């Protein structure tokens, strides 16, 4: 079965710390990869996506993610977090030939001012 795992359930950081959130998926073949963010009280919104090409993708608000095919990973990074980055982060994977998205369980990020 398809599955997406996210390494951390809850991450607590101080402002200006660096962030890396792990995401791994369980199947081979061509995939499309996404990170979504849900700020408190708001909709899920897209942070960044990978379809093909450069495996290092940049998204909004200074986030980036690196697709490492050999490791089945798509980790999210930000060099210096802000209090406003406090949110829940979801990794999602879609096989390119199918339309079903599989989401990870989410990682809650708390940034202390």
């Amino acid at each position: 079965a398809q599955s997406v795992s996210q390494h951390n359930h809850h991450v607590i950081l101080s402002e200006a710390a660096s962030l890396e959130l792990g995401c791994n998926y369980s199947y081979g073949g061509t995939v499309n990869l996404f990170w979504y963010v849900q700020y408190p009280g708001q909709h899920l919104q897209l942070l960044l996506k990978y379809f093909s090409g450069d495996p290092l993708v940049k998204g909004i608000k200074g986030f980036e993610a690196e697709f490492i095919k050999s490791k089945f990973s798509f980790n999210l990074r930000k060099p210096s977090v802000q209090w406003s980055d406090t949110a829940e982060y979801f990794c999602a994977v879609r096989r390119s030939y199918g339309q079903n998205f599989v989401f990870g369980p989410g990682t809650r990020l708390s940034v202390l001012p």
Partner: protein
Amino acid sequence: GAGVSQSPSNKVTEKGKDVELRCDPISGHTALYWYRQSLGQGLEFLIYFQGNSAPDKSGLPSDRFSAERTGGSVSTLTIQRTQQEDSAVYLCASSLDGNYEQYFGPGTRLTVT
């Protein structure tokens, strides 16, 4: 432009009653998805529509759950004979077609008492 809208935003119902949840996708988006998000859980895929047809119903948890989409636009998710374990936030998302990122609505919080 207008985003994905869902109604009602909150629904409290008694166990055993039927409920209908509505989703209005972004105009022109042919793909529509329903997910369920339970407390502390990730997003559980329920069903995917392309136009009015549902090529993937694999996520519907039981035959009490059904969904339809008419006119390639509005979709309704119906839960019959609700159970307490149906309590969750039901999220709808739409996509230009199945190959692009999803845009999420605000969700309907369903509480079954």
